[in-house]
């Protein structure tokens, strides 16, 4: 089970409290986790990454295990601790603006 932490605005949009838990088939990558997240919550499509290109939105960042994974290729496997559910995968709204 993959644990995903969403920023507050996306939790409100998806109408969830706390962490989201997802089953991800096959290799656990940023792309497969986001695919599973958007399949469960279609309202999140386009809010984290571009609908068509899949490119991360500029002010959204990805973290796990105290690492910034924002610039990792989408197909890169996530750390084992994320794949095993020990550590959450964090989707974060960048601190910017006022």
């Amino acid at each position: 089970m993959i644990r995903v932490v969403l920023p507050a605005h996306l939790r409100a949009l998806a109408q969830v409290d706390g962490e989201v838990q997802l089953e991800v088939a096959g290799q656990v990558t940023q792309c497969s986790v986001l695919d599973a997240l958007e399949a469960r919550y279609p309202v999140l499509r386009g809010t984290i990454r571009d609908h068509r290109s899949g490119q991360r939105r500029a002010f959204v960042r990805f973290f796990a295990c105290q690492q910034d994974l924002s610039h990792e290729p989408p197909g890169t496997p996530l750390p084992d601790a994320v794949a095993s559910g020990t550590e959450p995968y964090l989707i974060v709204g960048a601190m910017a603006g006022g």
Partner: protein
Amino acid sequence: MSGVRVLVGTRKGAFVLSSDGKREKWDVSGPHFAGWEIYHVKGSPADPDRLYASQTSGWFGQVIQRSDDGGATWAPVGNEFSYDGTPGTHQWYDGTPHPWEFARVWHLEPSPGDPDTVYAGVEDAGLFRSTDGGQSWHELPGLRGHGSGPSWQPGAGGMCLHTIILDGPARIYAAISAAGAFRSDDAGQTWRPVNHGLHSEGIPDPAAEVGHCVHRIAMHPSRPSVLYMQKHWDVMRSDDAGESWREVSGDLPTDFGFPIDVHAHEPETVYVVPITSDSHHFPPEGKLRVYRSRTGGDEWEPLTKGLPQEHCYVNVLRDAMAVDSLEDCGIYFGTTGGQVYASADAGDTWEPVVRDLPAVLSVEVQTLP
């Protein structure tokens, strides 16, 4: 008794202000979508319970919300706005080519006859339409592709399509900052600029087809060939469906401003909110004054009763004024200071409905049976 529902979009959420036909006591609901920028909320003329809202965020992009119960509950619908074909380029601020990139929906215009049909004006400038209640959106590419698109440049607020006027089954007007006004006579298939007579400082060619910073256009449905325009500078009027424009700024204290609207029952009665200048986005002398012309322009009178007449330095944005269609026409506008003012007597007197909302981006009103 009939009533009104005022739909307010702000920097930090949407608010719905409701009153009966007297427009004296108000119920306020909101914030809806708290923390998000709500560029526009508008109701369907065909079904007053059907509302659409543009919810945007620099972080999380675009969401379109729909209500089927007059704003009591909302549900997100489609948010994919993909330009038709290869988007191409427009000009960037420095004159270099810049790829067309979707940023947000500025304006939603529901069809007069079908609650499931709604148009969206977006940044970077394009016109989209949904015929399934907002679930899916398709560009009307003839506007962006009519020929001048590669020469369009953004205004300071972005290259937004902010005005959509639906005039019958075939005619559509659209206005873009800073490209100008455009008209389609075939339901959006093909377009042409309608900017003859506009003169803008900084455009050396007096016959320039595009490049004008149109802030807002208004039309009275009983006289669709008459259009009123608040341009960056200049209040303009066309009597031939945009074929030509003439200035009607007349005796206004300044002809810079953003909104313009027309009385619901008097097509020659027009409202603007003069703003000091393009570098001073606040009212002259710190006095918030709506100006009304009962002569279709040129002659204007200040409307001040109930509006702050000292130390007022707010702005009124282009989509932040609306009129209801009750017998005594109501006028509404919102400010960047978070006030929404209402007049139940066509502008003679004003009362604040709310004083402390986030900065107001848009105001629309529904007249309810």
